């Protein structure tokens, strides 16, 4: 359950709009149910007071929206940033993709967001109300007389179970308590994959990626994917790829994308959140992060603005290419 309240965020947004610090607010708008929240801009107090939502389903990372928003908007934009969102913003600032002058970032603490798919797995169809009290989530269902109760921890998004940091690495103002980077078990799943035989690993990814429908949601939501025109969308690129022609191309897209964002991916987990086919895409990115940590020393993309990622930097301590070919056992 979130420690900071909706009302606190609403008051903050209204006061910053009123005193002229910002001209618009990037926030969350409620939907038909308790869980279908849409990222949205707000420009009036009335709209904010009536429609602004902050709850345990506000997982969307706004950082990437700032790329276009800071271009389109004349004035400053208030953006509420959860700790993991700030890593994405910092990385975008490092890559000069966002106009910092037009951003007013308010860091807000986050106790982890809920994965509605996990809730549906337990409660089934027909969710009419979701009520969260401390560490318990209660679902009122069309099909059960009594509410279905589950531990919050059980339905937390994977990226939140393995939260890497509660720290805001960039913001203009912080609400609530400042947090710290955390030790997490986020590489455990990668290690499991590494321990597989090549055949087993191939079968694992074959099974996962064969479900891909090439909707490109993973790419379109990814704060590290900000090319104006992706090569895969560009008929003139020669590699335009609207649909995979075979199982090789199916894998190629995701592996190339993982290579492309290697060293820049902050592990925000949006790719896996949005995948309509439930493919654990973050595992590909985490493999790269883990390898980079191993070969070049610990590195967290987005932690410091202006930092040079190991893959685009040279130091005399860098490993030799041969180390990588040997499987990195050094």
């Amino acid at each position, binding site marked *: 359950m979130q420690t900071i309240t909706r009302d606190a965020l609403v008051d903050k947004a209204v006061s910053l709009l009123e005193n002229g610090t910002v001209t618009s607010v990037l926030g969350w708008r409620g939907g*038909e149910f308790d869980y279908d929240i849409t*990222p949205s801009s707000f420009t009036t107090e009335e709209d904010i007071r009536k429609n602004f939502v902050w709850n345990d389903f506000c997982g969307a990372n706004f950082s990437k929206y700032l790329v276009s928003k800071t271009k389109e908007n004349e004035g400053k934009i208030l953006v509420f940033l959860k700790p993991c969102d700030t890593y994405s913003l910092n990385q975008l600032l490092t890559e000069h993709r966002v106009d910092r002058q037009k951003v007013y970032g308010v860091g807000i603490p986050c106790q982890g967001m809920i994965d509605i798919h996990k809730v549906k797995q337990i409660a*089934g*169809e027909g969710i009419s109300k979701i009520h969260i009290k401390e560490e318990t989530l209660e679902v009122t269902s069309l099909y059960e007389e009594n509410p279905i109760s589950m531990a919050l921890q059980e339905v937390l998004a994977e990226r939140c179970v393995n939260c890497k940091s509660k720290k805001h690495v960039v913001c203009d103002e912080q609400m609530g308590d400042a947090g710290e980077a955390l030790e997490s078990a986020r590489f455990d799943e990668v290690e499991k994959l590494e321990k597989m035989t090549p055949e087993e690993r191939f079968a694992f990814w074959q099974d996962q990626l064969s479900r891909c*429908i090439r909707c490109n949601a993973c790419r379109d939501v990814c704060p590290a994917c900000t090319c104006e*025109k992706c090569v895969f*969308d560009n008929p003139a690129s020669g590699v335009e790829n609207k649909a995979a*022609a075979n199982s090789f191309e199916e894998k190629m897209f995701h592996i190339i994308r993982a290579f492309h964002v290697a060293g820049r991916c902050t592990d925000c987990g949006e790719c896996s959140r949005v995948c*309509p*086919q439930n493919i654990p895409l973050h595992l590909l990115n985490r493999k790269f992060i883990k390898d980079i940590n191993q070969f070049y020393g610990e590195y967290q993309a987005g932690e410091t603005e202006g930092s040079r990622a190991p893959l685009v930097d040279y130091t005399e301590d860098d490993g030799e290419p041969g180390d990588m070919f040997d499987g990195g056992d050094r």
Partner: protein
Amino acid sequence: MRKCSLEKIEALFEGLAKEMPVYLPVDGSDGEAHFTQWEKGKAWSSALNTQRSAKDFFFPQTEDLVAFKTEGKKIEIIDVRSEKEDYVIFGVRPCDVKSFEILDRVFLAEPVDSYYKSRREHGIVVSVACTRPAETCFCSAFAIDAGEPMGDVSAWRTEDAVFFRSNTPKGDAFMKKIEAVTEECDDAEVQAQKEKIKKILEKLPLAKLDISSFGAGKTKELFDSPLWKDLSETCLGCGTCTFVCPTCQCYDIKEYDTGHGIVRFRCWDSCMYSDFTKMAHGNPRLTQMERFRQRFMHKLVYYPENNDGLFSCVGCGRCLAKCPISMNIVKVMKTMGGKENE
């Protein structure tokens, strides 16, 4: 009407599978149901909706159309079609069954799409009524009855049995094939289930969704609405809604060099994509707002206009469940109809 006890359903699939491929919803490793070819050990999922819609059977995501081979100045044109045998699609939900009618009006109108037609003719559709509709369901807005599914054969699944009723000559042939594992029965249990489903449908949160702001003849009224801008503001431009949708039917035709020749294929396209309908002069819809508007105008205005008022949405709710930003056709209809937050 015939009845098969659930204990015998395996035998029913086994018998059918001896004659032709049987596809049915099976729970996958990701916890959702996918249409899968039946073989021993595959169990019929009770999930409401399959992750992908049933349109895949008639209109697959990629489909080879024709191949070319050249030798010197000779060019050989090869028909690559392979779908020549009958098959059963078992357990299609009423919304997905309705989507076939919507697709038929596109692909079977002149000029008839022979690829689609062939798959459609070979497929035997066995539908099943919905006993547990989800909060995202709104098929009743489009006059679809979740308790009265159509298709070649309608089925109702109760605690311990499945009831079958044939609707077409293809369905009659299917009933003959399952005769040995089924018995003749009256429709009392089915009627009771229909009553139960009716009561549930009334309780659904989207049961009273008002579609009256849309439909044929509304183009002028809706096209220039200032609301499209806000609705599409944070749309990622991904293709999720179009690809999980049972009625989205746009495709692109492409070719690739196999190294030994050329294969021409078609693949799903999405109006959400920046290169959708790109022509020599460029793209007619330059902004995401225009692309977003196109999708909803097509489903709710243009299609009905060209098809006797029939909407091109069946209320399956997949886009509600899958959109990365939770923007969807229901929110569009409510906002445009001035009924948001109701």
